[in-house]
C-alpha cells in the first residue's frame, strides 16, 4: 500500500518526506527492490504480501483483501490483473466506502448532525442526501443521546444505521446509549437482538481547536463490553474499515482523526473490505516494535526516517483495532524484536496504550528484553495555545529519543 503525504499545513510539511531517505537501508526482506522514490514523495509499502489474484488469507473469505495491492506500474514483478487504482483523499475514501455499502444494502442509513444537506462537517457524507433522500441520510436535531438511542432502536428492528458524531467529543453525551444499550443489549436480550450500528466521527487533537474539541474517546469507550473499536489512518484502510464496520453484525466505533481527512492516496478500483480485528504492518524491522494508531502513525514514520539514518531498524505496526487487540501480529513482532514502544495520542492514564501495555506484559512477558515504553499525550486538557498543544502530544523527536533509550 502506498501512502502519499499531502501537504496541508505546517505539521504536514514536517510529515512529508522532504528529508532525505536512504533507500538502501529501507529494505523489505520479503520482496525485491520494493522501495522507490518519486520526487519528494515517500512511498511506504506495508507488509509485503500481495493478494490480488492469489488466495486470500485463511480466515478472510471471498473478497476480503487484507493487504496491499501490488501497485505500481514500475514494478518489475509480474503484471497483475489489478487496475492502477484511483487517487483520493481520506474523507473521500470514507465516502466511497459508505456509498458502496449504501448501494449494496438499502437498510444502511446515516444519521447525525448536518450529515444531510450540509454534507457532513468534514464532507464525508457530501451529496449522499441528494442521492439517497432525506430519510436515509438523516439530519438530526442536536440530541446526541437520543439519536444514538434511536439508531440503536432502528438497528434492533432491522436497519443498519451509521451514526456520525460531528466531533467524537459530542458522543460523550451519548455515553448512556453507547454503554448501556449499544454494547449491552445483545447480551441482556439473550442474543435476540443484534445492534449492527457504526458510530463514527472525527476525534483527536487538531489544530488549536481547544480542549473540548480535541478529545480522544477511545479510552473512555474501551471498557464497554460488546463493542469493537477501530481507528483508520490512511485512505486505504479508512475505506476498508468503513465497509467492514458496516457489514459487521457487532456495534463498531470507527475513530477518524481531524487532521487526516486530507491525506491523499491511490487505492484500488476493485472492491475490498478489511478485517476489523487485524493490525497493519507498516514497516517491518528487526530492532524494536513500535505500536501506534491514527495520526501518531505519521509521527512514528517520520521518526522512523531519522532512526533509520541513525542505523536503527524499527518495525512499525498500526494496530488499527483498538478493541480487541490483534495479539497475533503484535505477538509475532514482539517475539522478533523483544522491545516494544507504544506511541499514541490517547491520555497517559487509562488510555489504549495502558491497556496494550498490560496485554503485552501478560501474554509476551518472556519475550521482552526491556520494559515496555508507552508514549502518550500528557494528562492535560488540550490547551489552545499552539506551543502548549504541541507539547501535549507526542512529537517525533520524543519517539527517536525513546527508541534510542530502549535499544541501548
Amino acid at each position, binding site marked *: 500500500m502506498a501512502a502519499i503525504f499531502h501537504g496541508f499545513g505546517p505539521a504536514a510539511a514536517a510529515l512529508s518526506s522532504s528529508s532525505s531517505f536512504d533507500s538502501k537501508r529501507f529494505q523489505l526482506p520479503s520482496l525485491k527492490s520494493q522501495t522507490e522514490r518519486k520526487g519528494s514523495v515517500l512511498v511506504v509499502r506495508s507488509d509485503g504480501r500481495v493478494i490480488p489474484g492469489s488466495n486470500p488469507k485463511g480466515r478472510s473469505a471471498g473478497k476480503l483483501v487484507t493487504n496491499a495491492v501490488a501497485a505500481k506500474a514500475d514494478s518489475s514483478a509480474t503484471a497483475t490483473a489489478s487496475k492502477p487504482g484511483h487517487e483520493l483523499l481520506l474523507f473521500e475514501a470514507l465516502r466511497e466506502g459508505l456509498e458502496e455499502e449504501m448501494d449494496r444494502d438499502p437498510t444502511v442509513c446515516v444519521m447525525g448532525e448536518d450529515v444531510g444537506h450540509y454534507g457532513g462537517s468534514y464532507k464525508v457524507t457530501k451529496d449522499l442526501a441528494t442521492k439517497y433522500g432525506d430519510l*436515509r441520510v438523516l439530519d438530526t*436535531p442536536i*440530541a446526541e443521546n437520543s439519536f444514538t438511542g434511536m439508531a440503536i*432502536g432502528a438497528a434492533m428492528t432491522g436497519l443498519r444505521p451509521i451514526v456520525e458524531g460531528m466531533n467524537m467529543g459530542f458522543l460523550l453525551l451519548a455515553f448512556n446509549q453507547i454503554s448501556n444499550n449499544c454494547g449491552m443489549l445483545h447480551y441482556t*436480550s439473550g442474543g*435476540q437482538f443484534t445492534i449492527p450500528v457504526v458510530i463514527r466521527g472525527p476525534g483527536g487533537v487538531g489544530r488549536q481547536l481547544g480542549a473540548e474539541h480535541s478529545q480522544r474517546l477511545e479510552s473512555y469507550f474501551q471498557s464497554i463490553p460488546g463493542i469493537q473499536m477501530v481507528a483508520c489512518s490512511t485512505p486505504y484502510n479508512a475505506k476498508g474499515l468503513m465497509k467492514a464496520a458496516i457489514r459487521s453484525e457487532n456495534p463498531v466505533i470507527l475513530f477518524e482523526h481531524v487532521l487526516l481527512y486530507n491525506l491523499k492516496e491511490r487505492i484500488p478500483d476493485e472492491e475490498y473490505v478489511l478485517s476489523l480485528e*487485524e493490525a497493519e504492518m507498516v514497516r517491518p524491522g528487526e530492532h524494536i516494535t513500535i505500536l501506534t494508531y491514527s495520526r501518531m502513525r505519521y509521527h512514528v514514520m517520520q521518526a522512523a526516517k531519522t532512526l533509520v539514518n541513525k542505523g536503527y531498524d524499527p518495525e512499525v505496526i498500526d494496530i488499527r483495532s483498538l478493541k480487541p487487540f490483534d495479539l497475533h501480529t503484535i505477538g509475532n513482532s514482539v517475539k522478533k524484536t523483544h522491545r516494544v514502544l507504544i506511541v499514541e495520542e490517547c491520555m497517559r492514564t487509562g488510555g489504549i496504550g495502558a491497556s496494550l501495555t498490560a496485554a503485552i506484559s501478560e501474554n509476551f512477558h518472556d519475550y521482552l528484553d526491556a520494559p515496555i515504553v508507552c508514549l502518550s499525550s500528557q494528562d492535560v486538557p488540550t490547551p489552545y495555545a499552539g506551543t502548549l498543544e504541541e507539547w501535549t502530544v507526542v512529537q517525533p523527536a520524543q519517539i527517536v529519543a525513546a527508541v534510542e533509550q530502549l535499544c541501548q
Partner: protein
Amino acid sequence: MSSAFSAIKIIQPLPLKSSRSSDKPLFDPFRTPSSFLGSIHKFRFNSLNNTPSSPCHLRRSAVVAVSDVVKEKKLKSNSSLSNLLMTKEEGLEVYEDLILGRYFEDMCAQMYYRGKMFGFVHLYNGQEAVSTGFIKLLKKEDSVISTYRDHVHALSKGVPARAVMSELFGKTTGCCRGQGGSMHMFSKEHNVLGGFAFIGEGIPVATGAAFTSKYRREVLKEEGCDHVTLAFFGDGTCNNGQFFECLNMAALWKLPIIFVVENNLWAIGMSHLRATSDPEIWKKGPAFGMPGVHVDGMDVLKVREVAKEAIGRARRGEGPTLVECETYRFRGHSLADPDELRDPAEKAHYAARDPITAFKKYMIENKLANEAELKAIEKKIEEVVEEAVEFADASPHPGRSQLLENVFADPKGFGIGPDGRYRCEDPKFTQGTAHV
C-alpha cells in the same frame, strides 16, 4: 375524582368536568394556593375529597378529541350501552389479561420472598389497565418498549408466562436466557424491545423502532407497513432530557409512536408534584406539536378508547401522540421498598378504584359475562401462573459456557489470539474458561 366505574359513566365526558362547575378554571399553576409547598399528603389528598368546590390542583382536562369520540357514540345509539365499547369476546380477552397481570405479579412477590428471585423487582399491581388497554390492541409486529416495570407489558404482548418467570428465576429457559432479569424483558418474536434499567433510555430506542417502521414504508417501499411502537414510562421520566428530545424528533418526522406515561404519582419516594414544575404531563405534547391526552388509567375501557384513537393516528401516518394515564401502583416501588411515604388514605382511594374489580363489575352489569365464566378465567390463570413457577423451578441454571456466548453477535469481535486464531475458535471458549 371519578370513583366507581359504571356503564353510564363511560360515555359521559371524562369525570373531571363533571365534578365541578364548568365555570371553574382549569388547573392554573399561578393560582395554586400556597399550600402547594406544604405537606404533601394534605395537598395531594385535598383534591380527592370530591367536593364541587375543591381546588382543581390535580384536575386535568383531556384534549377534547377523546371525549368527543365517546360522546358521539352515545348520540348515535340509544340501544344497549354494553355493545358500544366492547364485545363479549373482547371483554373476556381483556379480563384474562388483567387477571394474568395481577396474579403473575402477586406470584412474583411470593417467589421473591421465598428467595427464588433477587435484585430489583418492580411490580405492576394496580396499573394493569394501562398495559391491557393499550397492548391488547396491537398486532404482533408492533413494538413495545418499557422501563423496569415491564413484566406485565411483556405478558400482555404475548410473551409466555413461563418464559418471564424463568427469566426472573435466572434460568436458561427465560426469555433472555437468564441474562436480563426483571428489568430487561426482551422478546424478538413478540417485539418487546426491553426492559431498561435507567429511566428514559428506552424512549430513544422506541423512537428508533418507530423510525424503522417509517423507513420501511418510505425507503424500502414496503407498502402498508404500518407498525406502531408504544413506549411506556413513568412520571419521573418526564423530567428527563431523553423524553423531550424524543418528543421533538417523533413529532418532527411524524413517527408512528405513542408515548404512554404511566403517571402513578411517585418516583420511588419522590412525589411527582415535588419534582415537576408543571405536573400536567399531557400538556407537554402540544408544546412539541403532537396531541396530549389525559386519561383515567384505572379504567381499562377509557384507556382502550384513547389507545384506539392514538394507535389509529399512528397507523395512518398522522404522527405521534402523548398519552398521560393517571394510575397508581398498589405496592411499593420495588420489592425492596418499604413504601412508608405514601399516605394510606391515598392508597385506599386508589385501591377502591382497582381496575380489575371495576371491569369485573362492568362485565357483569352489562351482561357481557357471568360470575362463572369470570371465575373460570381466574382459575385458568391461576394454573398458568403456577405452571410457570413449576417450569421455572425445573429449568436449569445457565452453565459456564453461556457466559461469553452473547457478548457479540459476531464472536470474531473477541479478536485474534497470540496463536493467530480467532479467540472464538478456541474450544475452551465456549466452556467459558478461555482467557479473554
